[in-house]
């Protein structure tokens, strides 16, 4: 293949991943609203370019840690979307057998070490994963996703210092969608922002337009290459916008409608699609929609977990009687 067709293939693959994430989350939000999926989902619609642009530079052996808003990271890392949809519905056959739900999806087979219901909690875990990788001389790196809200938690500071101190192979990805739940993060954050904080601890930082997947891909490629080359941790500050509310049922009344509308005009999917063959794009989007609708139907048809599953995988010694 020529390098031009390589480039096109990469773009098509990224478009497919973004379309699959969006279709997955559209179904997930609908299922949450209808009550078919119990509990809460946090959609990342509008932010797909960050997950996809970063994960396009990762290998299967690489690990990621994720957040409460983690469907995109999981799918971009290659997690099984059908199992994820079953998990959201609390069904047997879900990624975690129905015991985790949206906020605890993990797929260890592809290095997805888990979403997390605690803001910032993935940062120390990513540091330790990288330390283990170093100790076992594995050829792999860790990408650690977190939101802009996480930079106000202590583990963020600890983790930046720690990763820099031990020169760990970690790519920190701050998905700055501007909000921490219902609060504009700038209203509760002093100082120069996430990148400045990372650099203060000795982690070099780069900024990128997270709504431009090609830009994310290009910067991530550079940072990942540095990390693989032994350059130590790197920080990527990706600006983006959360189209939906904090959860699938939050109307986001705390922000002007025009702001969200403007973000929709910057759609990472449409921006990439504009560079590709429209027929191919339409086919990819239709395929993604059909795939995820199929997964949702499969989830509704799937059995509930065995009642006994509530008591398995607690612990070996002293397990529930």
């Amino acid at each position: 293949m020529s390098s031009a067709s390589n480039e096109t293939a990469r773009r098509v693959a990224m478009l497919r991943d973004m379309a699959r994430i969006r279709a997955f989350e559209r179904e997930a939000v609908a299922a949450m609203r209808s009550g078919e999926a119990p509990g809460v989902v946090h959609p990342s619609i509008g932010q797909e370019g960050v997950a996809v642009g970063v994960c396009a530079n990762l290998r299967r052996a690489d690990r990621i840690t994720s957040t409460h808003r983690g469907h995109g990271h999981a799918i971009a890392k290659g997690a099984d979307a059908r199992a994820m949809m079953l998990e959201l519905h609390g069904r047997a056959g879900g990624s975690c057998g129905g015991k985790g739900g949206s906020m605890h999806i993990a797929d260890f087979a592809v290095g997805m070490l888990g979403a997390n219901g605690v803001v910032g909690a993935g940062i120390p875990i990513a540091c330790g994963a990288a330390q283990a990788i170093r100790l076992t001389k594995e050829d792999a790196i860790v990408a650690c996703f977190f939101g802009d809200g996480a930079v106000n938690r202590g583990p963020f500071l600890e983790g930046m210092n720690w990763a820099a101190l031990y020169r760990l192979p970690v790519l920190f990805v701050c998905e700055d969608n501007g909000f921490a739940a219902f609060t504009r993060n700038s209203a509760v954050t002093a100082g120069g922002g996430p990148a400045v904080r990372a650099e203060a601890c000795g982690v070099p930082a780069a900024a990128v337009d997270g709504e431009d997947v090609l830009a994310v891909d290009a910067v991530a490629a550079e940072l990942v290459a540095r990390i693989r080359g032994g350059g130590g941790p790197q920080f990527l500050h990706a600006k983006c916008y959360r189209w939906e509310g904090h959860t699938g049922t939050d109307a986001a009344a705390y922000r002007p409608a025009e702001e969200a509308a403007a973000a929709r005009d910057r759609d990472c999917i449409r921006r990439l699609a504009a560079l590709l063959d429209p027929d191919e794009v339409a086919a990819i989007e239709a395929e993604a929609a059909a795939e995820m609708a199929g997964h949702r139907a499969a989830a509704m048809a799937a059995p509930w977990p065995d009642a006994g599953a509530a008591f398995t995988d607690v612990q070996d010694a002293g397990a529930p009687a």
Partner: protein
Amino acid sequence: MTRMTFAEAARRALAEEMRRDPLVWALGEDLVQGGIFGQYKGLSEEFGTDRIVSTPISESTIMGAGLGAALCGTRPVVEMRIADFTLCAMDELVSQIAKVRYMFGGQGRAALVVRMPQGMWRNSAAQHSQCLEAWLTHIPGLVVAAPGTPADAAGLLKAAVRSDDPVVLMEPKNLWTAEGEVPAEIAPIPFGVARQAAQGDALTVVTWSAMVPVVEQAARESGVACDVFDLRSLWPWDEAAVIASAQRTARLLVVHEAVTVSGFGAEVVARVVEALGPGGLKAVERLGAPRAPIPFSPPLEDSIRLSPTRVAAAIRRVAG
């Protein structure tokens, strides 16, 4: 058998585990310097600073990194310095480490050890003296062990390192320098098996951790023939041995250094009563600390510390 201190026994056990398994490593503050009680002394020289890692004062990340490292196939020994500092890493221990295997449907395991020396020691006052074992026995997913002798410190540490469960090892700060006989070949001690330290029909005495030598001395001095159980691990704990003994003696005393209110002694008594029925015991008592912080001044601290004299008096009371 060799006579050695608690710290030396624990040090040997970890060194042997690290020789046996290259995936075992330790992280915590001041470990390269031997740890604050000397329990890591010489280990960085033998195993290098990639496996004996001195960390920043970053308890959340010490704990959380231990988890990440366990999920990537290594077996970390996480050192909290003292149990009180675990409070800076509670999310990582309680909501991450204890939960991952379950939440992820068995995909990953937090096969790691968290060491947290606890209890009163050298007038350390309110923030450096707490006994928090009951907090952690309450958390599904955790194994909790609390050795009271050098031999058990070594054997339980080996079991903890080899366990696929996350194991909290609460070593009594006051006993690091205490001496005892340790087998030449240290074998892992299974969790949930108590050590019976004395035998007698007058009553059943249950204890663990720093109270073990205190209770043993008290039992000798009391002149009362009692069954004394050192539980060694608190979750799982040896319910069968304690219940069988209490059924025979019908008298139960539980002694622990922690605050009595909501202490693990409440669980021991409740289980025995559930097993024997409400009329199954003629006498029962919990002996622990009053619900007050630990004071600094030596005479004040002594007023809270359980002495062999006070325990012996309780033994006589419960024996009737």
